[in-house]
């Protein structure tokens, strides 16, 4: 037990080191997690990495005491194991010593060292695994001796079938319990049968692979060694594919780096596990019936196994529920489901060990389960489609019905994501987008852009400008947009006197690109936030051209303002995740009161994170002040507090006589998924609730009377910068569709007609691209992380449901997305 614990601790250390280095490989993950030191425990781990390294070295050395003992006579492989152990202690002792003298991990950066470091972190595991395998007893030719038999086909089949049926039933009950069968009995019945077909298909696939493994092993002269070896190879391949397909794309690691990291991790972890199994003594060699059983986790038999089997779904459901809001792109939930499946299989095999007799090999038992499962998998959606056409009930159409069910059953979602492809999947198109998402070594040239060429106005009166960009603020959580909301009375009052834009979107999901887009007044691309961003920072240029002074609390763009720009930082010592609108506004008021002698107008910019998912999930996802039926209480309660502080600030401006001389903009950088279809957060997807924004604008009365606008026209947060230029009486250049348009024009002027235009939306972090058409009514999304596409009709509020994608819709949207991406890449001189 102590041996296994020590080795697992060493494994955890190596895995964390590799994971940290792998995150450094990805420019996105580096900018998002590493550089801002988003997770304090990660920062602590890195700071004390040399200390943990020494601990791991000591722990691993203790597990090698027997192999290091020079007094024991050895020959053959055991002698090799002894010398490998000596080499391990010498080499890694030296490495630990060097790290103590000169810690390495804190100096790791997003550069060429990251990938080799991630790979090198697995070397100790491979080395230890080699020692374990060499020091294990030599495999006997048990097959010849008659003491060894490969896993029987019948037992494999029964174990896979029972485990699959058990998991299917448990997850269906959970889904029914949680969702209340709102879709109708027939739709539910069809979906449940399809869930069974999916589970049966996975089970048949696993069974076939396992049976092939045992069949191959049985044909060799050393079946135990072969079965164990093949099991390890399968495990390594499984871990590799899980990491390569499901984990690493979510942190935007490019394909070749992901393949390297995933392969080395898969081989290392499987070797470690196999080595530990070699070390584990079989209590009764006669009972250790098969080699693969020795590789399974040790479990007591009898009632304890049955009890564990009964507890397994409950533990899994608890873990899934706990992780639902904390998870990153379903990675941990999928890992939980994989573990649940493996454990269910292990326990069932253990429980049925003495109850299922082996039978002679049968071709029928090999082919029939797979054929039946596949036939059901294909037949059910077609039957659903025919039923939908026959009854005229569109809720029975498989794409819609299964999508609904997937939100309630993560196992179903996981399996259908892997086993079902949506029509028109185009690998070439996906590869094209991938190139523009995370190409290693890619670079851009930030152009020098001026929105206007007109000369500066003579010095004169300018209104103050206050731009509040509330991180993750959803429009449907504000009463001006949703009459069911009762917790934002101050914003409602503010909206009733001002312009409420009803059809606003961000060009970019998540802050990293959304905030620069607001400042630049344009669609931007990755790597835009770098020295040189000031060349296209339209808001900063306005500030300097019109003689404003900036008062700002921001952790995205503020670092890239020119040193000569007059900037006062509000709450500069508060971490980004702790930024609070109430505290910011108090500090801003103090700043305004203290600088009344300064005649320059103020440009105030605050981007607080009160309702960011990092905060709504802190404190156990608790409401601050009670229930909010129909709303997510941790979010709504924090929004109520924001609303009160915003109302107080408006009162402050009124009391100081500044209100009628202020342009006030209340908006957000992006929205947020709050459990819609099982999604939480906004990092790597572009669902409607993430793309849509609130936008409420107050103009001084003199300006208000002179302009017109289209409150229902499609608009973007990137329109704010050109709008501010126009409100400062500047003429804008026509810079093309990458740039925003003014929200206001003179009342006899021509409003920009964008109803027929299409607009590209991109995620800041994940490889997700969207196309917005028809005045914001149609949203088409290509999600490369999930390798899926969605089409939404946004005219149906409040919650958009993905439509079935017709072939021409797919063709037109994919073509248009390609076109937009190519144009943006050309504008920013993207090279790789």
């Amino acid at each position, binding site marked *: 037990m102590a041996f296994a614990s020590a080795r697992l601790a060493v494994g955890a250390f190596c895995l964390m080191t590799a994971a940290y280095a792998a995150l450094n490989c990805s420019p996105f993950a580096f900018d998002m997690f590493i550089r801002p030191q988003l997770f304090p425990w990660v920062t602590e781990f890195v700071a004390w990495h040399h200390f943990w390294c020494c601990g791991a070295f000591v722990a691993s050395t203790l597990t090698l005491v027997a192999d290091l003992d020079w007094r024991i006579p050895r020959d053959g492989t055991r002698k090799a194991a002894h010398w490998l152990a000596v080499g391990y202690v010498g080499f890694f002792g030296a490495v630990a010593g060097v790290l103590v003298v000169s810690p390495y991990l804190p100096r790791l950066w997003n550069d060429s060292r990251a990938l080799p470091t991630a790979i090198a972190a697995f070397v100790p595991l491979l080395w230890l695994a080699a020692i374990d395998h060499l020091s294990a007893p030599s495999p006997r030719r048990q097959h010849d001796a008659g003491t060894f038999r490969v896993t029987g086909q019948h037992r494999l089949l029964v174990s896979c079938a029972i485990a699959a049926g058990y998991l299917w039933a448990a997850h269906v009950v959970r889904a029914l319990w949680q969702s209340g069968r709102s879709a109708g009995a027939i739709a539910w019945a069809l979906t449940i049968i399809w869930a069974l077909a999916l589970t049966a298909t996975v089970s048949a696939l696993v069974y076939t692979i396992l049976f092939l493994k045992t*069949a191959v092993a049985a044909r060799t002269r050393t079946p135990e060694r072969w079965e164990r070896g093949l099991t390890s190879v399968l495990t390594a391949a499984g871990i590799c594919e899980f990491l390569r397909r499901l984990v690493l794309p979510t942190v935007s690691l490019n394909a070749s780096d992901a393949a390297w990291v995933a392969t080395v991790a898969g081989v290392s972890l499987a070797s470690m596990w196999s080595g530990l199994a070699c070390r584990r003594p079989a209590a009764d060699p006669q009972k250790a019936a098969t080699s693969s059983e020795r590789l399974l986790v040790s479990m007591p038999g009898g009632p304890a196994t049955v009890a564990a089997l009964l507890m397994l779904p409950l533990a899994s459901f608890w873990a899934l529920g706990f992780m639902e809001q904390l998870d990153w792109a379903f990675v941990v939930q999928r890992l939980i489901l994989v573990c649940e499946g493996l454990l269910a299989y292990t326990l069932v095999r253990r429980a049925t060990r003495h109850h299922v007799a082996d039978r002679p090999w049968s071709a029928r038992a090999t082919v029939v389960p797979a054929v039946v499962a596949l036939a059901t998998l294909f037949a059910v959606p077609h039957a659903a489609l025919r039923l939908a056409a026959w009854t005229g009930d569109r809720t029975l159409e498989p794409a819609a019905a*299964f999508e609904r069910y997937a939100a309630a059953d993560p196992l179903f979602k996981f399996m259908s994501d*892997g086993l079902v*492809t949506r029509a028109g999947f185009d690998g070439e198109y996906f590869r094209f987008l991938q190139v523009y998402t995370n190409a290693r070594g890619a670079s851009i040239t930030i152009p020098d852009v001026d929105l206007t060429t007109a000369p500066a106005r003579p010095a004169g009166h300018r209104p103050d400008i206050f731009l509040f960009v509330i991180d993750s603020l959803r429009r449907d959580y504000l009463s001006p947009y949703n009459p069911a909301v009762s917790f934002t009375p101050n914003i409602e009052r503010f909206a009733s006197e001002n312009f409420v834009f009803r059809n606003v979107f961000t060009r970019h999901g998540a802050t990293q690109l959304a905030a620069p887009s607001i400042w630049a007044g344009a669609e931007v691309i990755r790597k835009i936030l770098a020295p040189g961003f000031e060349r296209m920072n339209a808001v900063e240029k306005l500030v300097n051209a019109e003689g404003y002074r900036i008062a700002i609390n921001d952790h995205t763009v503020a670092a890239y303002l020119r040193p000569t720009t007059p900037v006062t930082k509000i709450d500069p010592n508060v971490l980004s995740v702790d930024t609070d609108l109430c505290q910011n506004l108090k500090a801003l008021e103090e700043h305004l009161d203290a600088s009344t002698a300064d005649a320059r107008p103020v440009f105030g910019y605050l981007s607080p994170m009160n309702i960011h998912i990092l905060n709504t999930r802190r404190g156990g996802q608790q409401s601050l002040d009670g229930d909010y039926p129909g709303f997510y209480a941790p979010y709504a309660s924090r929004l109520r507090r924001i609303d009160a502080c915003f109302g107080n600030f408006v009162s402050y401006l009124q009391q100081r006589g500044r209100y009628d001389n202020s342009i006030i903009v209340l908006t957000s950088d992006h929205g947020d998924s709050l459990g819609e279809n099982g999604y939480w957060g906004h990092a790597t997807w572009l669902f409607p609730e993430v793309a849509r924004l609130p936008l409420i604008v107050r103009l001084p009365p003199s300006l208000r009377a002179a302009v017109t606008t*289209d*409150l229902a026209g499609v608009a973007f947060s990137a329109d704010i910068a050109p709008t501010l230029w126009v409100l400062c009486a500047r003429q804008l250049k026509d810079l093309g569709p990458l740039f925003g348009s003014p929200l206001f024009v003179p009342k006899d002027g021509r409003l920009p007609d964008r*109803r*027929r235009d299409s607009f590209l939306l991109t995620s800041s972090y994940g490889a997700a691209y969207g196309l917005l058409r*028809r005045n914001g009514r149609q949203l088409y999304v290509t999600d490369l992380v999930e390798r899926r596409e969605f089409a939404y009709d946004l005219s149906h509020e409040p919650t958009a449901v993905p439509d*079935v994608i017709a072939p021409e819709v797919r063709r037109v949207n994919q073509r248009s997305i390609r076109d937009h991406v190519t144009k943006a890449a050309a504008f920013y001189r993207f090279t790789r």
Partner: protein
Amino acid sequence: MNQSSILAPVVVLCLFAALLPAPMPLPSSGLSQEDCFTLADTPPAAQSHDLGLLERCSALYPNDVELLGDLATAYEAASAPSQAEATYQRALAIDPACAELRLRLGRLLLRRGAAAEARREAALALRVQPNRQALVELLHASDGAPAGASR
């Protein structure tokens, strides 16, 4: 186990490889056409106002407001004001906040003497596009007042 015990699972795995991932079947309307889907991407001035094509495409995409607007304009150009009015109404039932369509409908209504209805359209449109000169003029025209007065 004999050689078939290896061959059988290999065949089954080939079956899995050939059939998975399974395609999700879609309802086939047999009507959808790319040309219609993108027809209203083109601004009306550049279109030939092929009434037949617009009618056919509007049947395929009955919720495409821009397409309906173009169809209504084509009806107006073809001197079919009642059909134009009905088409504008259809478009506005889908997108009641489209001020441009309300302006065009209001002008059409005013031409046929329905001043009160034209006024209503102008007033509704002004909620979406406050102060817009063209709407203010329509409002005043439907009131019988001289255009150009401030609101």
